[in-house]
């Protein structure tokens, strides 16, 4: 059982990356598009609105957590195991 839990956790971390809220937000935005299309509204515009907003929230939060820019060589944040 713990093996399955660990594997599921690894898959989740692989997909969600360093900010799981961003991944959840994207999933919710795609769901919203499907919902609006189901209500006969061609909601192609929803993702171009949602994606920049979600990205800005994510990078702003990261900047707040890690503070002002450090000298370029300094290690500011921990890298994820599958760093892109």
């Amino acid at each position, binding site marked *: 059982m713990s093996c399955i839990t660990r594997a599921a956790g690894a898959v989740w971390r*692989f*997909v*969600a*990356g*360093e*900010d799981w809220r*961003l*991944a959840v937000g*994207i*999933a919710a935005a*795609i*769901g919203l*598009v*499907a919902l609006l*299309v*189901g209500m006969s509204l*061609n*909601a*192609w515009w*929803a*993702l*171009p609105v949602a*994606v*920049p907003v*979600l*990205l*800005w929230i*994510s*990078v*702003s939060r*990261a*900047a707040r957590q*890690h*503070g*002002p*820019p*450090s*000298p*370029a*060589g*300094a*290690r*500011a*944040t921990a890298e994820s*195991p*599958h*760093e*892109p």
Partner: protein
Amino acid sequence: MSGAELALAVSVFLACAVEAVEALTIVLALGTTRGWSSSLAGTGAAVVALAALVAGLGPALTSLPLDVLRVIIGGLLLMFGLQWLRKAILRWAGVKEMHDELVEFREESEAARAHGRTGPGLDGYAFAVCFKGVLLEGLEVAFIVLSVGANQRHLGLAVAAAGLAVVVVVAAGAAARAPLARVPENTLKLLVGVMLTSFGMFWSGEGAGASWPGDEAALLAIIPGVLVCAWAMAARLRRALVAASDGATTVGPGTGAGDRQAADAAESERLVVPR
């Protein structure tokens, strides 16, 4: 080949090239410090595992209905693309360190030297580090290859683009006999992030049932739009952070030569962003 297919092939090529440069640094560090046979064995085992993953999942994915596939694949590409983009913005803004292959090579080599030898035969440490490094760097590319190939029904084209990138990087590494530190990795990562995000947005929207104005031509607006947004975010973030730090970005007098080199490399890529 349509424009969209060409753009996808270029995206796969760039994504694979970036990851191959990072994997090459790990293999070079282990090969030069611990020996080549175990390092190359670990690399080969990881490549076989990645090829098996693509060969196993590729046909299964292409058998899915196109709309289902586009929602799943588009969503995954969007999440992967935003991870790349987020990291690139944070690096450009100065929140996160720029990736530097020389620093990575030095750290990996030091770790390899510090780890004791296990005796004759297969060097377990070199094998394991190379296997894990190549597998982790390659896993995301394998999913990008699968996603792009399955969605466009051109798995062969995606695999060929990825294979070409590996050949080019390995050939360049063999010629240079050093980490490919002059490749503008951080800029390439931003471009890959922009492409993956754009295609992910387009496909997931289509898969969810929306019709883009102009169909595939909408990508001609989406791609530059995402790039401009990323650029604006990095510039805005950097200005805000520089103002907050009140000049804390200057390199201090005690900085070592290696760090100064990393700082110079990082700064040269960062200059693209207006301050």
